[in-house]
């Protein structure tokens, strides 16, 4: 019984939140990795692109809620999501037209584009704060739990409860669909193959029938869609605050780099590595250990390696370790 309780506690506080957070990071990191692999720079504006897309979804969700339109048990944000994606695509393509294209024509070095993307980041950040404000916004509705901790306890008679939130399941299901679609697109369609070709060898791609401007446009469209989806899922699961999305840049980049930047498979693996490291290191293990240890050895403290305030430090440390010992990441990426 104690053992079962320990497993349930572990699943409730570590496994399920870790999987949901990992999926969100993975979708975010896929966006970063695509820009790096195809457009060849680290896009620091990615976090704020996520915030921008999510902002549109939130505004639309509020409007739908005021009209009384909803999806029953599912969050209303799902109806708003496609429009949010379109809005974000519009914003990103406009940015490319106004900013990045100029530097692409100059054949600017990646390091210049990185700084340019920081400029874009500050502007997008400002735009989002101007429109929706810097505060926490909540837009989740529908059924909150699929199984609440109390129901679980009543059902099983265990002392520990296992709560599964709708948004967590939604996150994982969406992530699976998005990843499957993306890999199908990249590997099976001509459009996706031209993106891969451009990423493999830009010089050669230019000397083929591949239209470089179209590849760039496709990349931005996909990146904007991924960013909006990742942002909306994160916002539903936790809450939306522009500054938090800016901060998310660190774990997202860590995920992409850990997996091997430029490699989509690596981005997914990296997302889960970072998410589980963050969750396990900042989790107070006392609850699980109480069930597992013999009574005299039961911990009296929280057995928390680090306070949750430091969770971004975890991704930072992992990022440093990977860059020091295996700069190309778990899966071979493009970084040198």
């Amino acid at each position, binding site marked *: 019984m104690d053992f079962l309780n320990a497993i349930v506690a572990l699943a409730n506080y570590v496994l399920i939140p870790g999987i949901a957070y990992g999926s969100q990071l993975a979708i975010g990191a896929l966006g970063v990795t695509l820009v790096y692999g195809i457009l060849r720079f680290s896009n620091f504006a990615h976090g704020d692109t996520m915030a921008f897309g999510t902002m549109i979804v939130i505004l639309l969700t509020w409007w739908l809620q005021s009209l009384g339109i909803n999806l029953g048990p599912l969050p209303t944000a799902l109806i708003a999501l496609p429009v949010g994606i379109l809005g974000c695509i519009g914003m990103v393509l406009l940015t490319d037209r106004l900013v990045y294209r100029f530097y692409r024509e100059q054949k600017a070095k990646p390091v210049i584009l990185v700084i340019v993307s920081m400029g874009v980041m500050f502007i997008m950040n400002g735009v989002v704060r101007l429109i929706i404000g810097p505060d926490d916004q909540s837009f989740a509705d529908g059924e909150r739990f699929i199984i609440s901790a109390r129901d679980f306890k009543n059902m099983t008679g265990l002392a520990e409860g296992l709560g599964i939130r709708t948004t967590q399941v939604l996150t994982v299901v969406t992530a699976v669909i998005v990843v499957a679609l993306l890999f199908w*697109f990249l590997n099976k*369609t*001509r*459009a996706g*193959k*031209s993106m*891969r*070709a451009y990423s*493999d*060898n830009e*010089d*050669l*791609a*230019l*000397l*083929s*029938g*591949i*239209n*470089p401007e*179209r590849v760039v446009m*496709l990349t931005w*469209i996909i990146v904007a869609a991924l960013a909006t989806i990742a942002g909306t899922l994160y916002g539903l699961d936790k809450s939306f605050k522009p500054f938090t999305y800016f901060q998310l840049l660190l774990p997202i980049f860590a995920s992409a780099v850990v997996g091997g930047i430029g490699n989509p498979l690596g981005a997914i693996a990296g997302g889960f590595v970072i998410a589980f490291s963050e969750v396990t290191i900042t989790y107070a293990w006392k609850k699980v250990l109480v069930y597992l240890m013999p009574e005299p050895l039961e911990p009296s403290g929280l057995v928390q390696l680090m306070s949750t305030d430091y969770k971004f430090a975890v991704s930072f440390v992992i990022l440093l370790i990977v860059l020091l010992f295996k700069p190309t990441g778990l899966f071979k990426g493009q970084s040198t």
Partner: protein
Amino acid sequence: MIVVDDLHKHFGGFHAVDGASLTIEQGSITGLIGPNGAGKTTLFNVIAGVLKSTSGRVSMAGEDITGLPPHTLFHKGLLRTFQIAHEFHSMSCRENLMMVPGGQSGETLWNTWFGRKRIADEERALRAKADEVLEFLTVEHLADQKAGQISGGQKKLLELGRTMMVDAKIVFLDEVGAGVNRTLLNTIGDAILRLNKERGYTFVVIEHDMDFIGRLCDPVICMAEGRVLAQGTLDEIKANEQVIEAYLGTGLKNKEQVGA
């Protein structure tokens, strides 16, 4: 076909191409030889639009093509290969070839979802063409191999194959024989001759292997220090005093004299 008129390309103070003028006849296989650093590859890069010329003009079939970007030239039928073979390493050899033709309907997002039938038809035709090209080059067994894993010589063949996927008019081959063994070099040579005869491709070949040049090329152009030193048949070039001094060395001259 191609007329290069007083072309200059300077890198800072270094004059890589320094007033080169030459004419490439339609239907010819022109050899371009010269010592390392003579500006042969730079000349290729300028003609193919990879580098911008400092001054001078390049025209193709009477049309000024100076400074046009590579993919525009590609659509005009001017193709090039690289000294070090380039390939899409994560894709199979067949896919590498299938990527070449431009304007495929599968490139747009819309068609990816709503034009499946048209794409499938196109892909089938492309696939058949790619397989035909691989067979022509006698490397049909590599069709499903990742292009990043094949040998250097096979990559050179694949590069030649890329030019066969579209109706090329003129193909610039940059050291197609470098690091390739004799047997494979003969295969490449055969393919070049057949493409020239059967499809009317014009070739410009940078090469250091004199036997290879002798077998394929007429005329031969010798460059040195960014300028054209001499132009003529290989025998004329070999007999040219300036060429001997700049490139071939006196050893060859002595050997020929002994031979005679």
